[in-house]
């Protein structure tokens, strides 16, 4: 089970500002280790944000995204106390879901 994400969600006017810090190696698959063998690719491939059962953001990522990715986005239609879920899945099939409350 991967490390938990740090999610902060706050009201900015009538929109919800969501900031997510994910813990992931985001290995591109291009690097080589000390012995010369390729370090296998291991990166997040898809991210989605769910609010009240509705997907408000979905993303397809590739090896260009850096280690421990930071994602920030805004969406309309949320209010204080609502729950936001962030789900990521990587190329090895690992997945992580975390939740935060809009405060």
């Amino acid at each position, binding site marked *: 089970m991967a*490390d938990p994400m*740090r999610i902060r969600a706050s009201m900015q006017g009538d929109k919800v500002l969501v*900031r997510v*810090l994910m813990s992931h*190696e985001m290995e591109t698959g291009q690097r080589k280790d000390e012995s010369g063998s390729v370090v296998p690719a291991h990166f997040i491939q898809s991210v989605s944000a769910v609010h009240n059962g509705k997907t408000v953001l979905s993303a397809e990522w590739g090896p260009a995204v850096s280690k*421990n990715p*930071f994602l920030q986005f805004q969406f309309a239609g949320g209010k204080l106390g609502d729950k936001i879920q962030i789900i990521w899945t990587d190329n090895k099939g690992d997945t992580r879901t975390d939740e935060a409350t809009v405060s």
Partner: protein
Amino acid sequence: MRKGLVAALVVLALGAGSGHARAQSDADTLKGIEKYREALADDNPADLWEARGAELWAARRGPKSSSLAQCDLGKGPGVVKGAYAELPRYFADADRVMDLETRLLHCMVALQGFSAAEATRRTFGNGGSRSDFEALSAFVAAQSKGAKMNVSLEHPKERAAYLLGEQMFFYRGGPHDFACATCHGESNKRIRLQDLPNLTDAKDAQRAYTAWPAYRVSQGELRTMQWRLNDCFRQQRFPQLKFASDTSIALTVFLAHNANGGVFSAPTVKR
């Protein structure tokens, strides 16, 4: 003769002008770098290490199946808040001046029953191989955010450590005849785009010391003072600095005490 004098004066004037222009663009470069650092500081990946450190502090581990919750960092067993700002300090139970990582090692051995070899198997993390010291340091440091550096030199061993650290700071050695002071003994110096704090100047010392431990973007890891000193030794082409050695602690005492009065802001984000 007069033509030469006029020519010389013109060259001087031009030289002074371009010097001023260079100073201006240096200041702009610094501003640009500061802006970049501010942008990075939002959602510092160090938060991930801090969260893991908090878990490690509370988790029952080791042969004694015990947590670190009773570890005394100098302000009483289990008191983490403000502890980093007063480290390094003398600990009577070990009869030794210790910095944070040395003290954590002590508690891992004394409270949790790990052997020193086991506990120091991975002192500096690397991708998948994580270091418990880095996570715990991030956690403990974060609990001193906002506190003023207050390292005491009351105990004779603390004073001795400071003097040894000072000696080390100015000691030239290695194949390049380097001392810490070679890079850090003068103001307004930089290596490429990295400005070098003058660690003998109070303001620079405060600004530098209170920013560690830090998430080093180029390393993709959270790095501690033990790592910072170890890497300085590497850059100077000195022999490898031993983790939790008297030398590492003495240098830390010297740097930390010179930073007294500075407001602690770690964990920060660095290049």
